């Protein structure tokens, strides 16, 4: 709602500018490269772009409503896809036009600074509007994928539900079912059909309170496709195993290196301790023997005798 107000404001502004130009005596239709004409061209292009953005946002709101309304029974997915496509195209073309306008504004020389600023602000404004519209579009697409996923889950959990009149399929199943099958997924049909039906049988001898043959939904299961899937599962498991084993080998080789380090360290330690032990043993031996004491005593004696002799010489 704010958006539409701004549009009318902008429209008034554009009108005012045009009127001023007409007062200056320049026609809108002339394509001469005069500054006033440039301005009118610019305002014309800007007005077109703003209208385009407005329409796109309207379509976006419609798409939002449709996406939110998509329940189990109202599947307007074709419409939604169409609308998404149209909106995407619109946004792309608007982007192009806006960038062209931007180029135009930058390249053309403006008569006074104010008009230049004005055009630039308008371009920026349109740009932001376009960006917000694109963001909303993206959000809507996300919402739509979420709702699709939920739909899928609900369909898988339900036993059966009336989508089309398949009550006649019970009478001649194979013939009509093959022609009336619905592609829920992109699985190809084959000679395999999965029915889900509810019948009036006394399967466990309870009273016949359930209604008669409920029309059912048709889903396809493919025998060969399931075998293929199983085989693919097996091959992927084997690939995983291959990866895990190579990781295992890597780990083991790394640890082997670590172990070698440990081994080297232990060898060094052994060596060092051996030598230390040897030196300690020799120390002990030296200490335990009296040799040094005897040497010291003799030394002292000799020195004393020398001094004595020298003094008494």
């Amino acid at each position, binding site marked *: 709602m704010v958006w539409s107000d701004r549009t009318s404001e902008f429209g008034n502004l554009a009108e005012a500018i045009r009127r001023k130009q007409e007062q200056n005596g320049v026609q809108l239709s002339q394509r001469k490269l005069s500054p006033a004409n440039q301005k009118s061209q610019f305002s014309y292009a800007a007005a077109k772009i703003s209208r385009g953005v407005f329409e796109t946002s309207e379509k976006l709101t419609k798409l939002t409503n449709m996406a939110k309304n998509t329940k189990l029974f109202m599947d307007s997915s074709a419409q939604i896809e169409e609308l998404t496509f149209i909106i995407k195209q619109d946004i792309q073309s608007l982007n192009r036009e806006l960038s062209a306008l931007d180029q135009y504004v930058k390249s053309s020389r403006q008569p006074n600074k104010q008009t230049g600023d004005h055009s630039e602000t308008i371009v920026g404004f349109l740009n932001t509007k376009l960006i917000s519209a694109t963001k909303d579009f993206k959000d809507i697409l996300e919402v739509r994928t979420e709702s699709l996923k939920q739909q899928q889950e609900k369909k898988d959990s339900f036993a059966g539900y009336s989508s089309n009149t398949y009550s006649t399929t019970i009478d001649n199943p194979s013939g009509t079912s093959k022609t009336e099958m619905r592609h829920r997924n992109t699985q190809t049909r084959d000679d395999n059909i999965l029915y889900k039906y509810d019948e009036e049988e006394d399967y466990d001898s309870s009273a016949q309170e359930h209604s008669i043959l409920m029309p059912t939904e048709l889903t396809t299961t493919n025998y060969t496709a399931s*075998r293929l899937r199983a085989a693919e599962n097996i091959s992927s498991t084997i690939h*995983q195993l291959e990866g895990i084993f190579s990781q295992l080998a890597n780990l083991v080789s790394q640890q082997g290196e670590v172990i070698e380090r440990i081994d080297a360290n232990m060898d060094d330690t052994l060596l060092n301790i051996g030598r230390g032990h040897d030196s300690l043993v020799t120390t002990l031996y030296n200490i335990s023997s009296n040799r040094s004491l005897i040497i010291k005593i003799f030394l002292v004696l000799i020195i004393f005798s020398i001094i004595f002799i020298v003094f008494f010489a």
Partner: protein
Amino acid sequence: MKVYSIGIFKVTPGGKPVLLSIVYELSSFGFFQRGSVKEVSLFVSRETVGRTGVNERVSMEHTQTQKVCHTTVDSKGLGCTVLTDSEYPGRVAHSLIRLALDEFNKVHNESVWRAINTDTELPTPALEQLILKYQNPHEADPMMNLQKNLDETITIVKKTVEQLGQRGEKLEDIASKSDDLSFQSKAFMQNAERMNKCCGYV
């Protein structure tokens, strides 16, 4: 995951299928329910196989009781139905059907059952063996067997890798400790040698 019955029918287009042979495995039902279950299974099998086209594989699920009926009719007019619960994988059920048809054709000649027009019971002991064997689809079907083995292997290998990681951590620990040890021993040796050198100073 259980197989409840395997039935062989003679299917003629436009006519009601004629029962040729049927085996049941109803140990999960109470003793008094078995009779009615047999009747109902026979009815369901007959109806389903009657509506199956030639060389067409059908798997029909009864939503009330969560039971599925898989059927196939081959080109000779011989139909086979297998009743299972809903968890039983359809692929295995259809391979079971193939096996059952082969067994039946081995034992009973085509001329034997072509002439039959009323419900009879042609004894086929192989079918009973089959139904017992396929009570456990994981072991009976080679693909599922393989998948199961591979999954077990992967779990074990993952555990091994985890333990290997722990071993790696411990080895790192030991490596750092041995580093410290070698450093200390070197210091000790230097100390001892110094002592030995100047032991004249004691």
